[in-house]
């Protein structure tokens, strides 16, 4: 557990490292999904192409969108893009930087899927088995079939158990041929992608370094500002809730004393903290009434300052006046990092 916590802390301390971590996990997940997926070529003339190309192209698209969804910064980008200008100018370079860095990370898992699919060879074998050059690979001595029949026979190449065209073209020969083409395509694709990534990464410092540093600083700033604002709002909400509830209980106890003509609650000098915390509610009926009132009639979201005298009796609304004799409560300090 300590090990995981340390790795987790390391990844989280640096926002970019965290995103890189998610990116790596998605790439591994895509290879796992591919190996777990049970590929089933339909072995029918018109369906093969659709199935093969579908498996090759649809999951990468889904993985690409998932890469965006899992990225926390997408909502930040959308917010920064849509906000009104107000007193703060909008810098399109910052938006472009954020979008580019997100898109680059989201592209890794789809590229891995396409590479693994092509290097494995099943998809291309399934999709293009009807286009195998029979004149080159097949047995010349076989009598020619009609177009439709030929396609039907060739479509069964990926399904060895039902293949019936061994005299036309040997199953292993066709599969080897298609797999060779698929692997060649796969390696070319991998080379192309790595070359592209290399060019993007190496040309950037040579041309736009100053602008890049600026965009990176301000995009980190926007992220940090959003997080700090959320933290500040959470703390404000906590204080608000504390004061609101405290005023509710105080209002309750004052009005109960007034309404039921109980003996006024004396605060003896040796009462101690526990009695203070009871807030004047010391029996079963009173507590039940407090709970019922909390459910039926929550106080309004409007805190009164203690200095304001208010003579209203409680009429079931939560506008309680505050006891003058209420000692100052110690609120938990939350300025720890200020």
């Amino acid at each position, binding site marked *: 557990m*300590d*090990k995981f916590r*340390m*790795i987790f802390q*390391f990844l989280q301390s640096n926002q970019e490292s965290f995103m890189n971590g998610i990116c790596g996990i998605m790439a591994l997940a895509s290879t796992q999904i591919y190996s777990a997926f049970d590929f089933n070529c339909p072995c029918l003339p018109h369906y093969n192409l659709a199935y093969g190309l579908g498996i090759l192209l649809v999951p990468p698209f889904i993985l690409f969108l998932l890469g965006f969804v899992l990225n926390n910064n997408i909502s930040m980008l959308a*917010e920064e893009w849509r*906000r*009104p200008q*107000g*007193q*703060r100018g909008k810098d399109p370079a910052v938006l472009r930087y954020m979008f580019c860095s997100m898109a680059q990370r989201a592209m890794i898992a789809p590229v891995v899927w396409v590479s693994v699919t092509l*290097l*494995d*060879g099943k998809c291309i074998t399934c999709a293009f088995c009807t286009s195998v050059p029979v004149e*080159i*690979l097949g047995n010349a001595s076989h009598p020619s079939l009609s177009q439709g029949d030929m396609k039907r026979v060739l479509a069964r190449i990926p399904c060895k158990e039902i293949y019936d065209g061994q005299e036309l073209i040997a199953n*292993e*020969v066709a599969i*080897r*041929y298609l*797999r*060779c083409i698929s*692997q*060649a395509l796969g*390696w*070319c694709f*991998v*080379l192309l992608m*790595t070359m592209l*990534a*290399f060019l993007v*990464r*190496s040309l950037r410092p*040579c041309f736009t*370094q100053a602008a890049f540093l600026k965009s990176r*600083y301000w995009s*980190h*700033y926007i992220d*940090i*500002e959003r997080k*700090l*604002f959320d933290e*500040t*709002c959470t703390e*404000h909400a906590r*204080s*608000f809730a504390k*004061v609101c509830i405290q005023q509710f209980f105080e209002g309750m106890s004052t009005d109960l004393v007034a309404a039921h003509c109980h003996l006024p609650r004396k605060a003896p000098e040796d009462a101690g903290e526990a009695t203070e915390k009871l807030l004047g509610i010391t029996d079963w009926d009173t507590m039940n009434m407090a709970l019922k009132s909390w459910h039926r009639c929550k106080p*309004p*979201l*409007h*805190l*009164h*300052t*203690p*200095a*304001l005298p208010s003579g209203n009796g409680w009429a079931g609304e939560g506008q309680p006046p505050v006891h003058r004799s209420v000692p*100052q409560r*110690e*609120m938990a300090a939350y300025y720890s990092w200020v």
Partner: protein
Amino acid sequence: MDHFRMIFQYFQSNSESVMNGICGLLTLASIKMYTSIDFSCPCLPQYNMAYGLGIMFVPPIALFLCGLILNRQSLVMLEEWSRPQGRRKKDPAVIRYLCSSIMQRAMVAPAAWIIVTLLDGKCLICAFSGSMDPEKFVDFASASPVQVQQLLAKVPCKDEELMRNNTSRKAVSRYLRCWSQALGWSILLILIIAAFLARWLRPCFNQAALLQARHWSNYIDIEQKIFEETCCEHSRLFAHKCILHFFESMRQEVKLHSFSLSREGEGSEGDQALLRGITDQDQVNKLLKMWYYEKPPLDVSKATQR
């Protein structure tokens, strides 16, 4: 756990160690990739050579580029190379040192792939079975030239019906595998001797200049890391001040617009400070709306002067 933490900290503290770690991972990944990809020679006369040599040389190029991309020092080197001189001189020795260390690390994974490929032998058998001299092998010597090409091309495919128990196929296969393994071991030996000599003889040549280059390249790396951390720290403080300033300006507005409720009470300084004068559902909603519609300007000079 302590052991693990120490290893982790050691790796993190030294950038070179991180690079060595990545280099090792990439090498392991290349070997794993080779073993998991199902190699299938096409066994056709025109395609064999292209496929065999392609599998031997294209992945190393991709691995080399990956090694360059994943190495953080390559960015540092490029920045140092392309920066304007300004007030700091540029030292070509540092750039050369960085370049050579990056290249050395990036070459390990491709070399591992090529060596594993040669030691395994399948690629070479696939690529060069068509170039064998048929006279040396009994079954092939008696066939016509066209047929010979076809037969030789089918040698790498063991489960072809023609080839299954053919002794000449096995002979060609053994011959080519022997050459392939000899080549693989020789390359490995040459590389290890070269690395050994380079490391052993380096202190004899210009050690002082090397120490200087290494020191300043480490320095550039550390300086860039610290600059990024300082920028992060600065933007955190900036954001903090900006938000506090925003809440303050909201409090001023509340004071201006509300009539009776915002007097400071003597016993409630703590509460008021915590709530920053915003004590109402409407005020909170207004604050949140203002935050979206009119973000405060990026100017905390008034806040810092307070």
